[in-house]
């Protein structure tokens, strides 16, 4: 009995880590020295906001903004600082699609799959981008330059189909234009 339980716990921890690290192939230890500035900023943010109710969302958003994802070690740091169990942080971080547990590419391409874009061929645009970059939704290119997200409605339905690269909207897309636009970011 006990043996089974031990195995279960081990399995749980492993699956937890796998999810966190986006597959074991990616080694995700953050370099504390190189990230010193970001970590200082984060600590300052926590200090200024810790009195606020519902602070966890604010902190996770700050981490996502600073690091581009939520590193495991940083989640542990938040847990200690805010006295919130790591499991709860993991729960919140995985619930919302804006939080990522692994790093994204330098250029994040969000292809809108809202209704207006869908009926105007958003799916084809996505297919084209996947072809161009050789990766699928949710992945990052091996050189770390691009990653693709399928996003919810970006509210630019008048320009459908649209995609967003690093916050900039590109509308009225066609397969040819997509190629042209992505070239600009290469």
């Amino acid at each position, binding site marked *: 009995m006990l043996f089974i339980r031990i195995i279960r716990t081990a399995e749980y921890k492993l699956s937890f880590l796998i999810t966190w690290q986006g597959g074991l192939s990616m080694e995700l230890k953050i370099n504390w020295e190189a990230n010193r500035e970001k970590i200082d900023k984060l600590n300052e943010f926590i200090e200024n906001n810790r009195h606020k109710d519902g602070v966890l969302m604010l902190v996770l958003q700050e981490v996502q903004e600073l690091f581009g994802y939520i590193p495991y070690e940083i989640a542990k740091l938040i847990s200690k600082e805010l006295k919130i169990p790591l499991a709860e942080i993991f729960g919140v971080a995985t619930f919302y699609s804006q939080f990522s547990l692994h790093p994204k590419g330098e250029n994040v391409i969000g292809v809108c799959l809202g209704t207006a874009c869908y009926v105007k061929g958003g799916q084809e645009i996505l297919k084209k981008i996947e072809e161009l970059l050789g990766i699928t939704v949710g992945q990052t290119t091996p050189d770390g330059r691009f990653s693709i997200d399928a996003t919810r409605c970006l509210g630019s339905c008048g320009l459908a189909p649209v995609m967003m690269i690093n916050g900039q*909207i590109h509308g009225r897309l066609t397969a040819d234009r997509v190629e042209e636009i992505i070239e600009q970011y290469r």
Partner: protein
Amino acid sequence: MITIQELDAIKERTLKAMGAKLYKLNRELIGEKSYRHVLICGGPGCHSSKVEDIKERFIRAIDRKGLKNVEVSIAGCFGLCESGPNIEIYPEGVFYSKVKPEDIDEIVEKHLCKNEIVERLLFEGARKGEQVIPVHQVDFYKKQKKIALRNCGIIDYNNIDEYIALDGYQALAKVLTEMEQGEVIEVIKRSNLRGRGGAGFPTGRKWETAYKYHADKKYVICNADEGDPGAFMDRSILEGDPHSVLEGMAICGYAIGSDQGFIYVRAEYPVAVERLRTAIKQARDKGLLGKNIFGTGFNFDIELRLGAGAFVCGEGTALMESIEGRRGMPRPKVERTAHKGLWGKPTIINNVETLANVPPIIINGADWFRSIGTEDSSGTKVFALGGKVKNTGLVEVPMGTTLREIIFDIGGGIAGGRKFKAVQTGGPSGGCIPEEFLDTPVDFASLAKIGSIMGSGGMIVLDENDCMVDIARFFLDFTVDESCGKCIPCREGTKRMLEILERITRGEGTEEDLERLESLAENITISSLCGLGQTASNPVKSTLKYFREEYKAHVYEKRCPAGVCRELLEFYITDKCIGCTRCARNCPVSAIRGNVKERHTIDAEKCIKCGTCMEVCPVGAVIKR
């Protein structure tokens, strides 16, 4: 602290400085009449097309020509996203569309210097015969009535003074100095303002519940988590006229006795977040938010909270969970949120558009508001027209306007001369309305009667090339992904429904599937915890009701009449084929045979329906059938 006299002084001063763009409001000009005003649309659609660059070029060109008395400014969304970037020139109201930065010199040279119209840039609808008509007579705008969008497309969204100039914060001043809390609620109740977020709950009644409930702390939340795909009304209000929302919230705060507001805005709208930040700061600096507003002892402040990409957070209680820093999962509604909401305190949660309607109601009175719209639904509603309609964009019409008027008179009908098939309202919670109901007046009751909902205002027009089964599948796919997983009917039920729909679109559906789909839809509706699940089956129910033939074609004949569902299609080479062999060379499974310069054929057994042949054919000889 600002006084009412100071507010009036700002109004007077700014009105003089706003110049000729006031003609857009048909206002008597106070300032110099010889002024010209170039107004550039900075709405979500046009903004992405580098409007800053356009403005910069205007200023430089005007400088070069040494023109005096010409002002250039960017304003919020004009509504007509289809033809953006849009520019209007006042006082004449000439409407230029699809303007590129390199066109600016020509506009300045011809229009501003010589008073000649630049014909090639003129919006095609801004012409009647030989005559050029001003923008307010263009079909797209003629039938509209703007209340929630009253300032969008006129004022500079980053300038609080311009909001004040157009009666901004006067409503707040009025309630704080002349009205009791109960009176404010009475006005809102009598106006019959109903929630614009979708459900249409009477706003006044909601406020009254919170007002009458005693507590040490109360909250006002503005729900700006506009997640319905195909809806961008709230975004345009937040970006084009953020102060109207802040003022509406402050009025609500006074009415129910709250001193703290939150705006929960989705992170997908970075521009709206930025403009709200600026607006809140300006209002604080002026003393229109904060302590002792207008010296009346009333305190109210607003904090911005960002969403993180979860559709379910548009649901009131899930939104509160999210603000409290947890997973956004809805709560069982044992008590109203007006009694126990955010952190267990009485909370009023209103949608952006609802709040933007509040100040004009206070200023013009409940009777004025009731005189617009229908008995059941007063006022106006903003819709985001999208999909296969010609004029995609944002429209605000009196309630009771028919779908036909919105789609055909304002929207210009279907693009590309194709046939109208259905209009989808209310996003994933709404339904598809077929042609026979096009003359239905748009109000809360009428839309519910025909199996759809008003929703937040997304209106996606579908034409004959859209498969209704596929549309139902699309929405279910969305709901399955966005279901929070708390209650079983929604978590498991929607997934099973999606599986059935996927089977049907693959041509594997059976008669039993249709029955199961119907019973599942009903069960999920009655047993889900929150609005997301309760309405998740609406797209399925409405398409089953109005487009059953299409489902039957998929199930019995294994055919997709609209030609969308790939597995049910057959690729076929017509006699247009010139025998270039390109399709045969590109086919990944070598399913195409034929000799050079002879018509090719596709082996249906081998074909994987990837569509490559259709893409590479130089003469369009490959068709789907």
